[in-house]
């Protein structure tokens, strides 16, 4: 697989240079690999930090800005960032009222963020971590690593970001983030695996009539291999799994997300199926996102993330946001 890169080693550094040049609203620390807001922030605002492996763009750097994150720490492709880097992001995000770490549930992310939090506390920055784990494809159990954090992370960043912007304190923002995570479920299906630059070939091979059901965001195989179906059936499968795990009822926030290599025209078609399914089950799609919001490089496929809305969550979703990847209301 050809990649539009200089070398696998320079992918992150090159991309960060590009982000810095493309977005004057971002401050990009190329040395520490931290993306933070260039503009001023209301003193006393709770800081929001996220991060994780790269390859999921626009997550997380594209969500730094008013109403969402204060800083992001991008690791190597599909590899969590290191503690010092997360510490640097935490310092960049600290406005005196503590910092929320939004961590996707992967052993590497959890451990590196935990170490960074310890380092931050040594420097008298209070850190609370919220671990997202919205992937309904994975059996949850206390004996395992548990569920993965996937698309729901975007919702957590948006809604917690809005609460922080409104002046909520660290514990309130953390409690909200937890509530959002709990109200959210995702499921993903891949048609063709993405290619990590260092690997140079797709993470798994699928025949013309095969799909991977229940994939994560790291090009890993899913929970089972299935047969290629019309998008109506694939979307139905995904929503059936989510619905069985946490019933879909009432007003929903729905993200129909592309994995990086699927045309937008197909994502709109998939979204039409999702809306039909949800309305057919008595729910309502009150708000939505359709596009590439949490990707797996050039993987082909989609994920659906569904959250039950209440008045507070709806208000926070509609609150102004101004980041490279999500922008409305200002």
């Amino acid at each position, binding site marked *: 697989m050809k990649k539009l890169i200089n070398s696998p080693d320079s992918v992150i550094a090159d991309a960060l240079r590009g982000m810095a040049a493309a977005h004057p609203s971002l401050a990009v620390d190329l040395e520490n690999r931290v993306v933070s807001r260039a503009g001023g922030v209301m003193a006393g605002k709770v800081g929001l930090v996220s991060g994780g*492996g790269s390859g999921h763009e626009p997550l997380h750097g594209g969500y730094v800005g008013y109403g969402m994150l204060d800083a992001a720490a991008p*690791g*190597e*492709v*599909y*590899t*969590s*960032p*290191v*503690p*010092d880097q997360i510490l640097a992001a935490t310092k960049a995000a600290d406005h005196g009222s503590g910092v929320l770490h939004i961590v996707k549930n*992967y*052993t*590497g992310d959890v*451990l*590196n963020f*935990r*170490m960074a939090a310890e380092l931050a506390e040594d420097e008298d920055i209070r850190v609370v971590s919220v671990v997202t784990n919205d*992937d309904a*494809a*994975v*059996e949850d159990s206390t*004996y*395992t*690593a548990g569920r*993965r954090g996937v698309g729901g992370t975007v919702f957590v960043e948006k809604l917690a970001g809005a609460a922080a912007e409104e002046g909520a304190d660290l514990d309130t923002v953390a409690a909200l983030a937890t509530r959002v995570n709990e109200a959210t479920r995702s499921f993903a299906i891949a048609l063709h695996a993405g290619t*990590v630059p*260092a*690997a140079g070939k797709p*993470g*798994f091979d699928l025949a013309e009539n095969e799909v991977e059901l229940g994939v*994560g965001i*790291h*090009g*890993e*195989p*899913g*929970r*089972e291999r299935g047969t290629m179906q019309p998008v109506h059936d694939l979307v139905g499968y995904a929503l059936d799994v989510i619905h069985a795990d946490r019933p879909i009822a009432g007003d929903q926030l729905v993200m129909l997300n592309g994995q990086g290599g699927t045309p937008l025209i197909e994502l709109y078609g998939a979204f039409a199926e999702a809306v039909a399914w949800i309305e057919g089950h008595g729910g309502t799609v009150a708000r939505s996102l359709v596009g590439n919001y949490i990707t797996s490089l050039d993987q082909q496929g989609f994920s659906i993330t569904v959250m039950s809305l209440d008045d507070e969550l709806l208000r926070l979703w509609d609150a102004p946001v101004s980041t490279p990847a999500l922008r409305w209301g200002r």
Partner: protein
Amino acid sequence: MAFDVQTATAWITASEAVVKANEARLTGLDAAIGDGDHGANMARGLAAALANIAEKEPATPGDVLVAAGRGIVAKTGGASGPLYGTAFRRAGKALGDATEATAEQVGDALEAALTAIKELGGAAEGDKTMVDGLAPAVAAFRQAVADGGDLASASVAAADAAEAGLAATVPLQARKGRASYLGARSVGHEDPGAASLALILRALAEVTA
């Protein structure tokens, strides 16, 4: 032979070399049941370990391992960075400021590494992780010392046990790390972390031979 600064440094050097030589294999194992970066992670981490040792010029074998561990944590990322990094750091601390650690002390250091990994990652034996290589290796190392073996023979016993432990991960279903997301599909593959661990303990056996 005793475990001194030279031996400790030689161990990390040999580990870096063997991991680099096996980078594609480790990545392949991780691609099958994980995300395909374990080879790159370990290569990057052990290179950082060597760089940090070169920079810190540690005076004791304990400090060599602490420097290695710090270098790994600082540059690796992923699950293996904190796990291996903390393991080396704790192993180093367990050696105290001995300039020549005995086989028994090295056994304690390996035990400290195992404890650190279990504490941090929460994995037990049988969860299909590097613990499945390290736990039997520590036991074999201690047993060899108890049986009157020296550092060299105990290290060989540890490396053998780690390799057997690696082979024993094949039929297991993963319960920790990324491979756990595959559920039953994780069965039938070697665990990448157990594979890198076996390489690193074989490197110990070689530098102490």
